[in-house]
C-alpha cells in the first residue's frame, strides 16, 4: 500500500514537472452546427500563428485542446470551460465565437482565476465578466458607432433606413449605429428587423424601397444571408447611386461577394479586417494561412484567432512563462503591436481591443470584386466601454 502511494506521488510529481514545461490552452468552440465555419476559421488562424512563430514560448511548449460547444449554449460552454480547467488542467481559456458562451465562460475564468482571451464574441459587455479576460477581435459599438458618426459627417448622409437581424448583435448594431448617426445630426427614417433564420429578403427590401431613403444600413450575420439580401436588392432595383447601401464587414465577406456578384458593387462597409489588404504583414499571413487551411482565405474570425495567439505569446514572454492569471493579464494590458489587420492594442484599463476602423467600398479591381478602403478612423476604443468607465467615475 505504501509503495503504491509513493509510486503514485512520484508519478504525479513527474507529470506535474512535465506539465510545467507545457502551457495548455483550452478552446471551447462551436465546431458543429450553424457556426462551425466561424470556429474552423478561428482555429485555422490560431494554427497559422503557431506555424509562423513556432509552438514554443518562453521555454514552454504550447498545447491547444479544443472542445465542441455546438452552438449558442452557455450551459455547455460553461461546463466545457470548467472541465478544461478541472479535468485537463489548462492554464488559459481562449476562443469563444458567440457572446452567450463567452459570458458563461467568463464566470469560470473569474472563479478559477484563469487568463481568458476572447477571440470573437463581439458584444461589449462580455469583457466585464472576468478581470482576467482580454479581447482581440472587435466590439460592435466600436465599429457601428464609428460608422454612424462617419456616415452623418464625412459620409454626407442625412437619412438612413436600418435593416438588421432580430437577435443580440443585430439589435446592438442597430442601437449603436442609430444613436451615433442621430448624435451627428442624421435622421433615421425607418427601421425593420428580420427573423433570424430568414432566407428571403424580398418583402423587407420592398418595404425599404417604398420609403425611398437616402441610405440603407444593413446588419446581418454571415453565411447565406448577405448574398440573399444582395440579390433581393438587385431584384427590387435598388440603385446604389441613388440609395447608398451601408453594411457591416460580414455583408461583403468573401463568400458573400462571390455569391452576390456585381450586385455588391457600391456597398460601403466599415470593418476592422479585409483579407485582400496588400499590407506586407497581411500578405505574409494570408500565404501562411493558405497552407494551413487548404487554400482557403482568412476572414475576421481567423484574424481574431491569430491575434489572440499573439497576445498570449507576448504576455507569456513578458511573464517568462508564468501562467498566473493576474500576471498574464497585467502583461497583456497595454500591449501594442502591428497585426496583419493594422496597428492594434489591448486597452490597459478595459482590457478590450483598440484598433483602426476602415471604411471600404466594393469596387471591381482587375475584374475582381474588392472591398477598397478609402477612409479610416484610427485606434478606436470601444465607446460602450468608455461610457462604462465614466459611469463608474
Amino acid at each position, binding site marked *: 500500500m505504501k509503495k503504491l502511494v509513493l509510486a503514485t506521488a512520484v508519478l504525479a510529481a513527474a507529470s506535474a514537472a512535465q506539465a510545467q514545461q507545457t502551457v495548455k490552452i483550452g478552446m471551447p468552440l462551436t465546431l458543429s452546427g450553424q457556426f462551425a465555419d466561424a470556429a474552423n476559421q478561428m482555429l485555422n488562424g490560431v494554427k497559422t500563428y503557431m506555424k509562423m512563430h513556432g509552438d514554443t514560448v518562453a521555454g514552454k511548449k504550447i498545447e491547444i485542446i479544443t472542445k*465542441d460547444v455546438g452552438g*449558442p449554449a452557455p450551459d455547455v460552454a460553461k461546463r466545457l470551460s*470548467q472541465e478544461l480547467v*478541472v*479535468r485537463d488542467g489548462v492554464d488559459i481559456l481562449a476562443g469563444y465565437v458567440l457572446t*452567450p458562451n463567452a*459570458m458563461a465562460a467568463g464566470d469560470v475564468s473569474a472563479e478559477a482565476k484563469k487568463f481568458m482571451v476572447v477571440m470573437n464574441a463581439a*458584444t461589449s459587455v462580455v469583457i466585464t465578466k472576468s478581470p482576467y479576460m482580454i479581447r482581440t477581435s472587435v466590439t460592435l459599438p466600436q465599429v457601428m458607432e464609428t460608422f454612424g458618426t462617419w456616415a452623418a459627417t464625412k459620409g454626407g448622409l442625412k437619412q438612413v433606413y436600418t435593416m438588421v437581424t*432580430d437577435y443580440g448583435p443585430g*439589435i446592438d448594431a442597430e442601437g449603436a449605429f442609430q444613436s451615433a448617426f442621430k448624435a451627428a445630426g442624421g435622421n433615421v427614417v425607418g427601421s425593420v428587423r428580420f427573423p433570424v433564420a430568414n432566407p428571403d429578403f424580398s418583402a423587407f427590401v420592398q418595404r425599404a424601397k417604398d420609403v425611398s431613403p437616402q441610405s440603407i444600413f444593413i446588419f446581418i450575420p454571415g453565411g447565406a444571408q448577405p448574398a440573399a439580401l444582395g440579390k433581393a436588392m438587385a431584384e427590387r432595383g435598388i440603385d446604389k447611386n441613388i440609395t447608398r447601401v451601408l453594411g457591416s464587414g460580414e455583408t461583403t465577406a468573401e463568400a458573400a461577394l462571390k455569391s452576390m456578384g456585381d450586385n455588391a458593387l457600391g456597398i460601403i462597409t466599415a470593418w476592422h479586417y479585409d483579407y485582400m489588404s496588400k499590407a506586407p504583414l497581411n500578405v505574409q499571413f494570408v500565404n501562411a494561412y493558405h497552407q494551413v487551411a487548404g487554400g482557403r482565405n482568412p476572414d475576421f474570425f481567423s484574424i481574431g484567432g491569430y491575434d489572440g495567439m499573439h497576445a498570449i505569446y507576448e504576455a507569456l514572454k513578458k511573464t517568462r512563462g508564468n501562467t498566473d492569471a493576474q500576471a498574464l493579464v497585467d502583461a497583456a494590458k497595454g500591449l501594442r503591436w502591428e497585426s496583419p489587420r493594422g496597428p492594434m492594442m489591448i486597452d490597459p484599463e478595459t482590457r478590450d481591443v483598440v484598433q483602426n476602423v476602415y471604411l471600404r467600398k466594393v469596387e471591381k479591381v482587375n475584374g475582381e470584386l474588392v472591398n477598397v478602403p478609402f477612409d479610416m478612423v484610427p485606434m478606436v476604443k470601444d465607446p460602450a466601454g468608455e461610457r462604462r468607465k465614466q459611469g463608474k467615475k
Partner: protein
Amino acid sequence: MHFQGLTRWRPLEVVFWLCTLLPFVLTPSYLSLASQIAITALFALSLDLILGYAGIVSLGHAAFFGFGAYTAGLIAKHYWTEPLSALLIAGLSAGILGYALSHIVVRFRHLALIMLTMGFGLLLAEAANSAHAITGGADGLQGFRVPGVLGFRFDMFGRTAYAFALAVLFLCFLICRRIIHSPFGLALRGIRENATRMPAIGAPSQAHLRKAYTIAAVMAGLAGAVLTQTTSTVSLETLSFGRSADVLVILILGGAGRLYGGILGAVIYMVARDQFSGVSPQYWYFWIGLVLVAVVMFLPNGILGGLNAFYKKAQ
C-alpha cells in the same frame, strides 16, 4: 395485491441507483457532465411518460423544459436566489402551460400531433427571442447567479450540482414509477394501445391524456429549472427545436415505454458524445450517427427493447 407485486424493486434497479452514486468517488472530475446527464435523464423520463406510455409523440417538449428554465432564471434575477422554492414554482408554471396546451394537443393524432407539438415549441422559442427585454434574447439571460442550495455551493467541480440534479431525478422517478404501476398508468397504456376502445370501457381517455401531459410538463420544467440553477445560465437553446429533437432521439435510443429507457439513453448518448467529441471535436457527430444507425439495425425498440428481446430469446 396485484399492483404491489409490480412495484417491488428488482435487485437490478437497486444496483443501478447505487451506481449513480459512483461518480462522486470514481470520476470526481466528471461531475458537471454527470449533473447534465441527470438533468437530461429527467427530461427524457418526462417525455417517456407521454410518448412511451400515453403514445403522444411530441417534437416540442423543450417548450416546458425551457419554460421552467427561464422561470427559475427570472426568479433568481428579480426576486430571490433560493433554488428549492424557485424549483417548485418553475415546475408548477410549466405544468400550467402544459395543462393549457394539453386541451389542444390531446385532440389530435399521428402527423398532426407531431407537427402541432413542434409548432407550439417553435412559437414559444420565437416568443422568447422577441421578448428579449425580458429574456435577454439570443445573448441569454444575464445578470443572475444561484450561489447554491441548502448551504452547499454550486462550484466549478460540480459536486453540489450533481447531488441536486440526482436528487430531483430520483424523486421524479419514484413518482413516475408509482404512476405507471397505478390504474391511471395502466389506463394510459390502454389508450396508447387502442385509442378508440378505451372510452368504451369507461376510461375517459382525453382527461387521462391531459393529466399525463401536465405531469410530464411539470417534470420537464423541473429539469429545466435545475439546469438554470446549477449553471446560472439560461439561453434560447433550452427552448429550441434542437433540444426537443435531441431528447426524442435519446428516448428512442434507450427504448420508450420501459421506464428506464430515458435514463439509459441519456447516459449512453451523452457519454458517447462527450467521448467522441474529445477525440474528434470537429466530426464527433459522424460517430454518434453510426451509433444511432447501429442501434436501430441491431436493437429494435431501443437498447432496452433489444436487451429485452435478447433475454426472451435466451430463456
